[in-house]
């Protein structure tokens, strides 16, 4: 039976349930509110409720056939994701941008070219590389490597990342933002070419899962509905 992984709580779960309902599949939690078990009505499918951050790993390992999670989490968590997962549908909610931001008062720094030059001068002045706080290490590093920016260092920040500049543990940040409100409140601005990834909730299909004949047939039956 096709195993579908869905975020186990919050707005992301509710929106996911709505999205499937619009396509004729009723997802529901079974048992109590605290129990992470679920059911799918309208398809030969098992519902697996788990943390959105674990879904990429489970898809890549083939323990889920289908899964809903943010594209940022897949890019961060699954090396070579495009050889292991297919996009079935971009679901149109959960939008969030992974961006590179610097202090708004850096009037001399609006682009990656500027950041590269600033990093060189900063290193010469302070004796260490310009620090960028993030929890999205892989995406930020790939992005800056592709842009051939030098003289920066990534420092790990698992929360309150916007505050690291004020607290002087970083000079710049790379983080998820949806409205930019928190960035502004912390006196930061996004570089004009600093969009690393525009993320949204996405339905993924695992290429590494074992797809039996019956599972493939069921997936073909649902394919048009899910891809629209």
């Amino acid at each position: 039976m096709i195993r579908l992984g869905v975020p186990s709580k919050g707005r992301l779960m509710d929106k996911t349930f709505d999205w499937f309902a619009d396509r004729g599949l009723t997802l529901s939690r079974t048992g109590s509110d605290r129990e992470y078990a679920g059911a799918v009505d309208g398809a030969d499918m098992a519902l697996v409720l788990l943390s959105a951050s674990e879904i990429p790993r489970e898809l890549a390992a083939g323990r889920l056939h289908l899964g809903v999670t943010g594209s940022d989490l897949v890019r961060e968590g699954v090396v070579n994701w495009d050889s292991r997962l297919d996009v079935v549908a971009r679901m149109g909610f959960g939008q969030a941008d992974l961006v590179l931001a610097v202090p708004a008062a850096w009037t001399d720094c609006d682009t990656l070219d500027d950041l590269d030059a600033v990093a060189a001068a900063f290193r010469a002045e302070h004796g260490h590389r310009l620090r960028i706080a993030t929890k999205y290490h892989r995406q930020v590093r790939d992005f800056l490597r592709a842009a051939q920016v030098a003289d920066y260092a990534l420092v790990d920040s698992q929360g309150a990342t916007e505050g690291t500049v004020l607290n002087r543990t970083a000079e710049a940040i790379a983080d998820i933002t949806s409205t930019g409100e928190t960035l502004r409140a912390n006196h930061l601005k996004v570089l004009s070419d600093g969009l690393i990834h525009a993320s949204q909730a996405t339905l993924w299909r695992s290429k590494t899962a074992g797809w039996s004949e019956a599972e493939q047939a069921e997936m073909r039956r649902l394919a048009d509905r899910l891809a629209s």
Partner: protein
Amino acid sequence: MIPPATRTRAIALLDRFAATGAQVVQPPILVPAGPLLDLYGEDIRARAFVTQDPLRGEAMLRPDFTVAIAQAHLDAADGPAAYAYLGEVFRRQEDDPDRPREYLQVGLERLGDADRAAADADVLASIAAALRDADTAPATGDLGLLIAAVDTLDTTPRRRAALRRHIWRPMRFRRLLDRFGTAVVPRPTPATTAPLVGLRGAAEIAARHDALAQDAATPPLPGQQVQALQALLDLSLPMDAAADRLAALTAALPGLLPAVERFDARRRALAARGIDTAALPFAPARGRSAMEYYDGFTFTFARRDGGVVATGGRYDALTTALGGGHGVPAVGGVIRPGMLP
């Protein structure tokens, strides 16, 4: 896993290097991450296995031998020395699951030799001799020519420094060259009411605005120098034929002459060791985007199908960075026995 036959071959190569008088050394596998991060930047994290030592901080499984050997030489030795080594290196693979994460390198490093041309030629000749029975072909380069060309451009020290910093990053180098080759549109200093947060101070921001204003007032690079630099980047000829072309380029870039003389001295040293410089491929930019930042002579030995069996080059600047400003002449090369045909 490394096949036993590869290990046997590697031991034979090491014995050969040791027989030339090189001291056999065994650097540690687990090395502190700090010096490698300082040298290579964040990119090294994508290519090396990083681990956490609870007492000493971040550590790496050695991604190469060169840094450890150069550091040990700088800490201990005075005077020239030759080192040979054999062992595993470890590289993370994020793109190709079939590429090995763990493989053998057999190498030779020469540190402190004042006669750079002779040391360059010795290392290439030693590796050529070690690979004599393997079906591989050498090719050479010289990043020292590119660096010298940049240093001789008729422009501001700041622009030369910016280009030099990106010698090893072709795309950014190209963009800088394009920008410096045309008139810069002055950039207004925007007003802001945002309070300044973080470690980078107002004086640093003001200094960069000054630098940008000065840069906008700088005349474009002379067209013939940009063309000569481009010709240098594109040059790819047998070494002897390249010598004539390089001599011609000194018309537009007179400051290139000492580097061309170094190239010629090396060419003669190679010929004196029986290397056929009339056939030896040469392109100044070869080795430019390798992780190892070479700043002079570079070389590779490749199989007929293109697989690279050996690489090497001169890395004086790396020893300067490791030695806190005091470097020594340094050149070396490694063979990957697992890549032998």
